[in-house]
């Protein structure tokens, strides 16, 4: 178990390095998938099997697929070679990283067990769904519900953002249209079938997802 833990930890770090070092965005996200899987393995070696399964289902199986989906749809897998738009971004990132590492070191040396390890392992009872559910829905009910409302708000927000009025579907550039004031009347006359093919609009390199 100890050996597996160390190996998985090392692999997780390798995946993390690939994530930030890979030039191709798809390779980078595959590195992240590897890291997430290794973290799931770490959970499994710590006897938290429910957490491990959920980690794979939610993060590696759904979230990362959506990441890759967006990368492929936007064709964003090419490396960007322009000058960085944010000044001193590397230096700032270095400072942030150092601060974070320092915080972790402080955390590691001042950490005290809230209760003895044997007692904690006893309470975990193999990390099955039963124990998790019991804890989440009794002691942590309020945070649990708050998080679910937060996620709901995020979903509603995403739908609201996507549902904004579309650019002119008739192929006439916006500036040639009538000025602001009566855009809705204008759209009303556009027949429904007049929209150009989806790929054409996307080809304009504005990188906007419409589907």
């Amino acid at each position, binding site marked *: 178990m100890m050996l597996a833990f160390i190996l998985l930890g090392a692999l997780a770090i390798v995946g993390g390095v690939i994530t930030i070092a890979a030039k191709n965005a798809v390779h980078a996200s595959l590195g992240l998938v590897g890291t997430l899987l290794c973290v799931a393995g770490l959970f499994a070696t710590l006897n938290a099997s429910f957490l491990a399964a959920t980690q794979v289902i939610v993060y590696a*199986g759904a979230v990362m697929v959506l990441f890759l*989906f967006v990368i492929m749809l936007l064709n964003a897998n090419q490396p960007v070679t322009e000058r960085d738009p944010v000044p001193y971004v590397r230096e700032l990132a270095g400072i942030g990283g150092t601060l974070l590492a320092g915080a972790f070191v402080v955390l590691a040396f001042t950490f005290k067990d809230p209760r003895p390890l044997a007692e904690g392992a006893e309470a975990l009872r193999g990390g099955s*769904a039963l124990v998790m559910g019991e804890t989440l829905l009794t002691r942590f009910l309020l945070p649990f519900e708050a998080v679910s409302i937060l996620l709901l708000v995020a979903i509603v927000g995403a739908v609201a953002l996507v549902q904004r009025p579309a650019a002119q579907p008739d192929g006439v550039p916006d500036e040639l249209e009538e000025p602001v004031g009566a855009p809705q009347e204008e759209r009303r006359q556009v027949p429904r079938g007049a929209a150009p093919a989806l790929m054409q609009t996307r080809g304009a390199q504005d990188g906007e997802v419409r589907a």
Partner: protein
Amino acid sequence: MPDWLATLLISLLKAVLVVLGLLTTFAYMTLIERRLLGRMQLRPGPNRVGPMGLLQPAADAIKSIFKEDLTVTLADKLVYTLAPIVAIGMALTAFGGLPAGPAGSLFGENPWVYNLDTGILALLALTSMGVYGIFLGGWASGSKYPILGGLRSSAQMISYELGMGLSLLGLLMIVGTTSFHGIVGWQAQNGPMILFQSLGFVLFLISSFAETNRTPFDLPEAEQEIVAGYLTEYSAIKWALFQMAEYVNMITASAVMSTLFFGGWKGPQFLNALIPGISDWPLIWLIVKIAFFLFLFIWVRATLPRLRYDQLMRFGWKLVLPLALANTMLTAAFLAFRGSGGLWFLGVLSLAGVLALLVLSDRVRTLWNQPSIRPEGDIVRAGGD
């Protein structure tokens, strides 16, 4: 030989046997499928290689191994090779957790490769990783149709994963454990789960068809629209690996449905009167049940036409997902308020749900058949369908 080494070797042996069994089933499944489809379409099907075409799988295997393995210039070499391996690896791993008999019944060994407390969750996790094979294969091919197929299939599989997971929640609430052994044991005492969760089973069956990319949900490889989808640029053994993954996923889905809803490796109890102990024989009952579901897969393929892509999405999001949620709510409410009543009433409610769905199918069909028509004068908005 130390104890742990013996356990390890036996586990390895069992894993190899499972893989061999699955691959043999895959090979003959292709033949049976082609023959059966032929029968259903009033033609003989492949019957030239060997007696009754029985050597056809061998011929196919030799052909796909010795064909030239093409790689497109624009392909991403690493991911292109990795994709079929991921697909088949996840498909083969998922099967090992399913129990095929009582403990210690297979020459004194347990008839399963690994046993996890989180059995059903682990299986869902492994099958959800299977998306990567198709998805990455489509992208790494570096050409247009594969990427369209890959995008389609990942959207499809993610959408139906939700319905699949949710349709099992009612079952998990009734049984109260996620391990396959617990579920099979519960069914041995209380009767097969299909009696109490018929609505959940119907939803799970539909989602399984979508997850395994079978007709009527075989959008990822709709040859009339996108050549062969993510498979377009693949050839020889890599192509065969993808095919294997698809069929192994089908076998796993059949085994999961048998285990969760039809009593798993347990045979019918009344046969014990004829031959004592026959319902506890390992392997045989699970294989019989798997064979039934595999036949169902073929039968449906010969019967139903393919859905259009927008119909597929609406079907998943407007029908399967809400119904799975409703099933969860129904079961939860029943379990909370039933007092000391038996489970049979839940079974009646569930069956009534399925029947209502069948009777009202003409009303329900508009949910996914008609594109949502905007009222005249409504603003055209981005997004939507």
